[in-house]
């Protein structure tokens, strides 16, 4: 297998996990789209392209895990304000459990720092 496919696997993993990271941020507090994107981008190694978060947010909205309201702003157009929904919280809980098990399993199997 080429080293490129390792990068591929990771970017796929990142894509799959990103939405739960978004849900997790929203579970703590409601956020404007812009702020949400900035926070994610500030975590090193998480996002390579900020723009790709917006389609993700659209999908979360369509699935009903996230709800949005438009808020008037004095400096410019109305902005979307994102909040997590009940079903979003439920999915986040389930994911967090499964992720922890998965992450621990992978860490055990991979060479490197002993736990």
């Amino acid at each position: 297998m080429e080293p490129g496919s390792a990068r591929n696997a990771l970017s796929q993993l990142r894509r799959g996990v990103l939405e739960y990271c978004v849900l997790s941020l929203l579970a703590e507090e409601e956020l404007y789209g812009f702020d949400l994107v900035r926070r994610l981008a500030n975590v090193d190694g998480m996002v390579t392209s900020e723009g790709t978060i917006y389609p993700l947010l659209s999908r979360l909205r369509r699935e009903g895990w996230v709800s949005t309201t438009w808020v008037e702003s004095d400096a410019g157009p109305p902005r979307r304000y994102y909040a997590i929904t009940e079903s979003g919280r439920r999915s986040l809980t389930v994911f967090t459990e499964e992720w922890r098990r998965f992450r621990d399993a992978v860490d055990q199997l991979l060479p490197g720092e002993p736990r």
Partner: protein
Amino acid sequence: MTTHTAEQLVADYLARLDRAAATLPPDRRAELLHEIRDHIEVARAAGAAADEAAVRTMLDRLGEPDEIVTAAREAQAPDQPPPAAVPVRSGTGLELAAALLLTVGSFIPLLGWATGAILMWASRRWKTREKLVGTLVVPGGPGLIVVLAGLATMTTGGSCDATLRPTEDVETSSGGSAVREEYTTEVVCTSTGLSPWITVPLLIAAFVAPFVVAGILYSRARARAALEPSVTRPARPATGTSPWGGNEIAATLVLALGGIAVILFSFSIAMGAAAAVVGLVFVWASRRWTRREQKTATAIVGIVVALAAIAASIVALLVIRAGEDGSGLGALFMMPVAISMIAAAVYLAVALNRRQA
């Protein structure tokens, strides 16, 4: 000069994004462009992109338009359903529609019961045997039984004799010059057919049986639906599924056909009202129409009904005061109501069909 270049960079970027997004469905594309544009505006308003270098950094951080569009395309059809998707069973709207139309809906002559029967046979949750029972008990439904009962009281298979007899004259004019003679026709009917002791219970049984059968069939359908393997899908209808479910079909059919039938067959007010009420029940039971659409449809029918009722009452009062026959008023009242029902059905159908898949 710097601002000019910054504007140029942004315009360039958005143009590239627009071109790359050409392969997306129009609403997703518009949404994406809108959001990226907003992001840039907010960033600039916050002073984060004051000069050309800062703008370039910001656009870099946003990422390549192709990358963003790829993400948008993937966001439409995820590779596998999210692990925590809520398991959803497909609802029993179709079976409920059938059960209601076969019973209550049978008061809408011909069309109501027929629609219920068609929906029943279309369902996959009933065995053929059960569908046969549902059709044969009773064809035409309780509505037909009521009509037959009405006919039965008029002709019970016996014989009727008519005799002409002079009535006792009640008054003679004082001068005795004119004596009024009146004759009355007396009709005596003797029924030689089945005695009422048989026909009445039979009719009552035939009236009640369809309700019982529909109830049993529907509860079986629900029990079967509960045992079906859950389909994992997101809380909203998935992309690509048709928005037309049992509730939606029933609602538009009942409203539209009810309205058409009122016009063609000069329904009584009661039957028109039954069609409108049953149709609106399905409209509100549906999860595919937004609250706003449901309220609009109800308002279309409700407001017209209210106005027509007021208008008809006023006209009726005037007509009766003038001593004339007010029997043509039913049609006057029902015509606008029928049109409103058809209009509501068309509005709802268009709203559903406009949903992007």
